[in-house]
């Protein structure tokens, strides 16, 4: 296991550098001088030159990248033009809300999708299966921002059951109430995918010999489903759920924008509209790092469940 972990860590190094290179290269897409664009048309020439120097833009490109990498590793993603604060500080301030929203969304998605997927697999080719398959396809095809707007329209504006925007008065219960609609709309992003993976991995397990044996032994159906099938079908479900968390963090840009939540997504949205490029760049790198970390943890979990993977890293002698 230890060898495997070390191998995976080493594998991550080039990916991390390339990810940083992509984030760095994004700034090169800006037409014209980024400093001039950021400061706006009324900026004075000396201010532009000062920002150019601060961003290291007066250096050759290769040097610029090295400076960027060095700074990023020490948590220096530059300074926000709007807020005048370090980007990293801003991201850390806003991240907890986005993380909470994403975890809530993932929980909702799993609670709905996993049982649906199991049901669809057990009743393969029945009407229920067909219905669940169509629903998960509709889920994948729905733009989550529109779904959010529709939820807001029905539950806040017409039925007045749940609040539409903002964070409320700050008590735990009220915050939770304000996060219900955003997390449901965000959950839709992953629901279809998780349901489909659950269905197909359950179908896979269904055909295995040990399940047939369990049926032949006369075990109760419930015992077979929970103790034998689900336990083995869980690995792909965990994998896909873990990876979905990264997408949910990204989807938060949309839900936080619609529901007026002051999270990381909203921070990035404001930054996009006000051409605060360093916040956009820092935000996307931050999410990518989290995604890589999630991917790594999912792989380790996968390896822990599946001895085949780690066995190839054990010495021949033992």
């Amino acid at each position, binding site marked *: 296991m230890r060898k495997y972990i070390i191998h995976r860590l080493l594998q991550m190094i*080039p*990916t991390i550098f*390339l*990810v940083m*290179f*992509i984030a760095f290269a*994004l*700034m090169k*897409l*800006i*037409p014209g001088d980024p400093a001039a664009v950021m400061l706006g048309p009324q900026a004075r020439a000396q201010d532009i030159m000062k920002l150019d120097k601060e961003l290291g833009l007066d250096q050759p490109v290769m040097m610029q990248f090295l400076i960027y990498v060095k700074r990023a590793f020490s948590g220096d993603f530059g300074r926000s033009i709007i807020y005048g604060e370090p980007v990293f500080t801003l991201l850390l301030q806003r991240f907890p809300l986005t993380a909470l929203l994403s975890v809530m969304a993932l929980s909702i998605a799993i609670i709905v999708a996993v049982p649906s997927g199991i049901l669809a697999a057990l009743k393969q080719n029945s009407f229920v299966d067909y219905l669940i398959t169509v629903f998960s*396809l*509709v889920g*994948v*095809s*729905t*733009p989550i*921002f*529109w779904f959010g*707007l*529709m939820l*807001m*329209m029905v539950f806040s*504006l017409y039925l007045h059951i749940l609040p539409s925007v903002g964070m409320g008065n700050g008590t735990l219960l009220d915050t939770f109430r304000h996060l219900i609609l955003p997390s449901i709309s965000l959950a839709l992003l992953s629901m279809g995918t998780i349901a489909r993976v659950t269905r*197909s991995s359950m179908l896979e397990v269904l055909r295995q010999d040990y399940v047939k044996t369990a049926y032949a032994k006369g075990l109760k159906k419930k015992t077979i489903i929970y103790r034998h099938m689900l336990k083995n079908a869980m690995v792909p479900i965990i994998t896909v759920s873990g990876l979905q968390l*990264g*997408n949910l*963090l*990204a*989807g938060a*840009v*949309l839900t936080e*924008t*619609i529901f007026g939540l002051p999270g990381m997504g909203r921070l*990035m*949205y404001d*930054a*996009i*509209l006000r*051409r605060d*490029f360093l916040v*956009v*760049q820092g935000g*996307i790198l931050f*999410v*990518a790092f989290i*995604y*890589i970390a999630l*991917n790594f943890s999912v792989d380790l979990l996968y390896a822990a469940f599946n001895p085949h993977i780690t066995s190839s890293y054990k010495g021949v002698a033992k």
Partner: protein
Amino acid sequence: MTTNVRTIKWEFAAKFIRSKSAVTGLIVVVVLVFMAIMAPYISPFPSDSMDFSSMMSPPGVNGHLMGTDQYGRDILTRILYGSRISLMVGIVAVGIGAGFGILLGVIAGYFGGILDALIMRVVDAMLSFPYILLAIAMMAMLGPGLFNAMLAIGIVMTPNFARIVRGNVLSVKEEEFIVASKILGASNSRIIASHILPNILHIIIVYGSLNFAGAIISEATLSFLGIGIQPPTPSWGSMLRDAQSYLQVDPYMSIFPGTAILISSLGFNLLGDGLRDILDPRLNI
């Protein structure tokens, strides 16, 4: 040989007709294409005419079947014209994504070695960014506009195509008929063009259709955030951006364009899903 090909074609057609999802998907796609081509002829009103006597009217008033928006523009007309944007973005973005993806995937899978390692590292790195976030960030830097949106969506699609093509090239490469033509002295480019590509074509079609749905939603997302298609060009996403402020006053402004996005992307997803079941049920995408 010809009869053989013909039977395969008939078999495909028969399976296609029996597949509910493929047929439904195809119908939606055909209707969408019809809407896009015929928009100027079937629209009840000129594309950006404003009816100041009925602004934000509900469906049915003054001949506006789906009502009007905050400037009195006919929503049905804008939805018809909006289908042009969605289809165009889908075609060009999937074209870019599939084009570069096939190129990179074939090079990586067929030639292997250092080239493979290099390409796959870049692909891995790009996949470390959530798809939509990378597109959003690219648009934030490039600036809004139709061309930039197509480019950004196409580029973020590329790594997925590359990975799928590579995986399938790797397995096709080991087939006996390819080994045989190698022994017979066929050049690499000939093997790729006449053996490898035809054998992965079905995967590209299925994946292309599923990604078309993704492109429609991505364009809508970018335009909704205000960094995609710019007003006054009617795009479903930017219509929803306008509608957001009038959610309570005029719900139809947001119901219809959103439904248009949902049905179109559902259509391409159904088509892709159906085609996968027909062409290769074991395909895991």
